[in-house]
């Protein structure tokens, strides 16, 4: 697997929260090359199992979670040949006008989010962000034809081509969190050439952007011994204090804080040090806002960790990250998994039945 090509495919695919089927096929194709078993659960989570080599009970398992859904839009109303819409997930309304979209009607229709020219705006409107109920999409069709092809509830994805910037950085949409899905695939590929005793559940989760729902239900169903979420975090950029960011190109950010089990954190850090993988400690004092937050309190609870890929311009269509960080994260995860043994399970106090 070439990380760049896979990330490009994932990024350009459509998979708004609740409607991940399109992107899921791509993930399934990739994961199935390394998995012993693969299935889709009720919510739509893709669950790949790569068995560990342990022959003795108790069988231990680790769950990796990266979400494959992206934020998007939904048709709320057709009005005079234009499309009114609502958001799915946390969109920044300031970056919507002028975007190209794909309206998934009876067939896919390219459209643009209209931006009324400054000449026709009132002085007040020029000063403010357009509220959602003033925004609309133009697909170019007359009213009657539009009504035949588009219905209330149809999903809309933002369109953006994957772009390579200089310096091994890439830019595109939905890197949050498909870059993590690419990391997991890279990790599985590495593991194929390594020995590991624990079972690995690689889960591409759904509906993270609307409330961590896929992680909640898949963790309940799998009951892993430990869980690691892979997500993105804010990379360095102008106008944001350094203390709130990590460096893009500086390696995976390993979170610590109440959402993270301290032994998982230290094992990840030791692994990074032992194999000379650059990493960045990522203090996370409260809710991490990631799948790890839901995983931690599933059923009786489980030790969780969070590894994040530094990313600039989150929740826009120009999310930017370093491919090197994606590779390093995948490699770190594989080495971490290979290090898991029964002594570590005992140190974590995991049950033995």
């Amino acid at each position, binding site marked *: 697997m070439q990380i760049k090509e896979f990330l490009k495919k994932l990024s350009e695919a459509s998979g708004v929260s609740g409607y991940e089927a399109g992107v899921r096929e791509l993930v399934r194709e990739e994961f199935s090359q390394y998995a012993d078993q693969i299935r889709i*659960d*009720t919510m739509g989570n893709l669950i790949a199992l790569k068995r560990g080599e342990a022959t003795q009970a108790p069988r231990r398992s680790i769950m990796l979670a990266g979400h494959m859904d992206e934020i998007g839009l939904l048709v709320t109303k057709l009005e005079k040949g234009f499309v009114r819409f609502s958001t799915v997930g946390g969109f920044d309304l300031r970056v919507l006008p002028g975007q190209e979209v794909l309206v998934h009607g009876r067939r896919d229709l390219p459209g643009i989010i209209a931006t009324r020219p400054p000449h026709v705006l009132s002085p007040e409107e020029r000063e403010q962000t357009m509220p959602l109920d003033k925004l609309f999409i133009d697909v170019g069709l007359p009213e009657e034809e539009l009504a035949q092809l588009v219905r209330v509830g149809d999903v809309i994805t933002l369109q953006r081509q994957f772009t390579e910037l200089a310096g091994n950085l890439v830019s595109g949409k939905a890197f949050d969190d498909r870059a993590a899905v690419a990391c997991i695939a890279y990790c599985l590929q590495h593991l194929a050439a390594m020995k590991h005793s624990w079972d690995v559940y690689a889960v591409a989760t759904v509906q993270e952007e609307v409330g961590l729902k896929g992680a909640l239900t898949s963790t309940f169903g799998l009951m892993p011994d430990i869980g690691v979420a892979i997500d993105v975090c804010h990379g360095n950029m102008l106008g944001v204090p350094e203390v709130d960011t990590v460096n893009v190109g500086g390696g995976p950010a390993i979170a610590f804080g109440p959402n993270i089990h301290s032994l998982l954190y230290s094992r990840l850090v030791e692994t990074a040090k032992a194999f000379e993988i650059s990493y960045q400690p990522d203090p996370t004092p409260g809710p991490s806002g990631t799948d790890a937050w839901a995983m931690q309190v599933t059923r009786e609870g489980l030790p969780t960790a969070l590894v994040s890929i530094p990313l600039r311009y989150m929740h826009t269509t120009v999310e930017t990250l370093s491919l090197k960080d994606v590779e390093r994260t995948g490699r770190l995860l594989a080495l971490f998994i290979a290090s898991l043994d029964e002594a570590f399970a005992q140190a974590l106090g995991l049950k033995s039945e």
Partner: protein
Amino acid sequence: MKELIKELTEAYGPSGNEDAVRETIKRHIAGHVSEMRVDALGNLIALKKGQPQSGIEPRKIMLAAHMDEIGVIVSQIDEKGFLRFAPVGGVNPLTLLGSRVIFADGMIGVIGRERPEKPDEFPKIEKMFIDVGAPDKEHLTRKVGDMAAFLRPLADLGQRLTAKAFDDRIGCAILVQTAQELETTPHDVYFVFTVQEEVGLRGALTSAFGVEPDVAIAVDITTTGDTPEAYPMAVSLGAGPAIKVKDRGMLAHPGVKNWLAETAERLGLPYQFEVLEAGTTDAMAIQTSRAGVAAGVLSIPTRYAHTPSEMVDYNDVQNAVKLLVGLLSGPVKI
């Protein structure tokens, strides 16, 4: 069915005090279901056992409608016998002024307001009180913690009905009617009348965990965009029951959404798709129960939600029953 709707909407049942509603429902579904139980939170769980039919895979289906309504709770009583109160659920202060409320024992009170500093000041609940007509505190039998609901009889406007607590007694009425009309079904159908939806989907959370359904459909109300200068929304009264795509709390399972729509089309029933920008339903809690449930919502378009005068179209209500009966009679296609 109008008699049933009237009886249910006029029953007293703020969140946590659903007993009267539950007793009414029990009376109406007795004989139409195989078994009934009440769980620890007070949810009424009625099972209609499936009859095996060749070629149809039996499923465990949960239908949910909530019995509770929004209301107020007495927080403090002053020397003169006026009752200060707090909201139970999403109560809009604007709808309280001039309203009458009723307590569990039938005592009636009216809602008054302190003199505002400015005549056009937005009313705040802290500045309001309930007057039950007691001459002084000594003659008052109310206590802190007593709950009251809006008092408002149902009015039959012909095609349309207006009442308090259509949210969600209309859902309860539809479930009761469906249980009565559904003669046989290949599926185990759980009619669940939930508690405490208005304070955070609490009854749905626990009942779904207990029932462990494969598929769930909440029946609840949705707002409309068909009144003057309403927020843009393509849902109207009388255009058929609404099939939810999304609300603030959840995305309906696309399979359940399509199953509802295809069944409506097969039966020639009108329907509309719904994208609701605010609010959510029991389906949100059911969806993430255990390892996940395929969950959707059938909504009854309702004007003036969370006021004492909510309004629904009787055709939408009847069509919702027909749709559910049709749905439960055939295979689950999701």
